[in-house]
């Protein structure tokens, strides 16, 4: 059984990282996932790690993640996803929301 771990690495032209050092979004509820984004010095590259109970959809994961990373020109960034049976739409939506969150400029607060 165990969990399925997928790792993807990317290198895009003129990569953009995120504004915050670290950002987290989402809850690992049924059909949902959490996304953790962390600025990392990857020499411009981006790394994505997915942990999911789902097997047999590795290729779909790769396509969804690739589209997201390339579509947003992401680099120097580590993305980790803990998934609990989310459909591709939920994955893409959470990734987009996570990116927006990661680029939010903090105002007020501490």
């Amino acid at each position, binding site marked *: 059984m*165990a*969990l399925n771990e997928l790792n993807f690495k990317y290198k895009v032209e003129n990569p953009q990282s995120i504004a915050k050092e*670290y950002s987290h979004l989402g809850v*690992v509820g*049924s059909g949902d996932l959490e996304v953790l984004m962390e600025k990392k010095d990857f020499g411009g590259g981006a790394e994505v790690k997915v942990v999911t*109970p789902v097997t047999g959809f590795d290729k779909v994961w790769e396509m969804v993640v690739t589209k997201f990373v390339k579509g947003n020109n992401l680099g120097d960034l580590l993305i980790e996803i*803990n998934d609990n049976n989310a459909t591709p739409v939920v994955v893409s939506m959470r990734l987009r929301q996570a990116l927006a*969150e990661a680029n939010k400029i903090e105002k007020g607060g*501490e």
Partner: protein
Amino acid sequence: MLSWDELQKAKFTEANARERAFGLVDKGTFTEFVSPRDRMPSPHLPVLGEAIGYDDGVVTGIGLIGKRPVFVVSQEGRFIGGAVGEVHGAKMVQAIKLALKAYEDVKVKYPDSYEERLPAVVISFETGGVRLHESNAGLLAHAEVMDQFQDARGKIPIIAVIGSKIGCFGGMGFVGAATDVIIMSEQGRLGLTGPEVIEQEMGKDEFDASNKALVFRTTGGKHKYIMQDANFLVEDSVAGFYQQLQEVMKLPFAEIEKFRRIGSKKLVEEQLELVKLAVGLGAKDSMDVWKYYGNEDPAKLVDMGPDEFLKVAKRRERKLG
């Protein structure tokens, strides 16, 4: 995530555990401990093929309410029903342990004015108790939480906040009952045995778990408020709970102790009176009990908004407290 100001307006039932943790303390003061960034998921779930979460379904940290350090534990019902496993449990236990450490430190540093900086523990419960996937570890963790509660007795207040979808059940049901103060919304539920199990034990005629109205009037916030099992009833918003916490923090600790329902011989004797009432009354429904306490038309209370309810609802009278 919503900003603190937006969160205050948000429904408590809609907020996730992290949002609740942020919103229950003063604006901008929350610092999370063992956040997802520390990547400390359950070591036991992967072998069962069960999804992991980096916070293991509970957000722990510290914030302020006024000058008082508030140690927050906020359970996430969407992650395996908020159930307690080894990591989740350890985070709960350690939050209380750290609060007690803070208590000792504050007492040393501010010997004459430590009450105004008295640490507190706030637990936002959303759980069915022991996580079956790591049940033995979860069970042992429950016992540790109770142990810490006893250590905290007479030193720092432990406040339960119950207003999320799952409620507070199973082993965590008596952990909730063992706190000093309980704040609930009418959407909150507190009990021991979940509705499905009661139905299974007693039959559908006696207890139909799909009858949510029945489920809620048996264990929901309004009922618990009438029974004095919940001390405060607030509206379903983050602000509702936060503001009530602010009020509680203003009370001297001796007053807070009076909110307790169990934890001494006298309180046990008081509860035994209630058990005798249960026998004498032969109540078939919680509304029979509401009526007994002087609510002439108990059915009316069900749909009443919190403000009106607080005005008209008659509660069990307590000799103590």
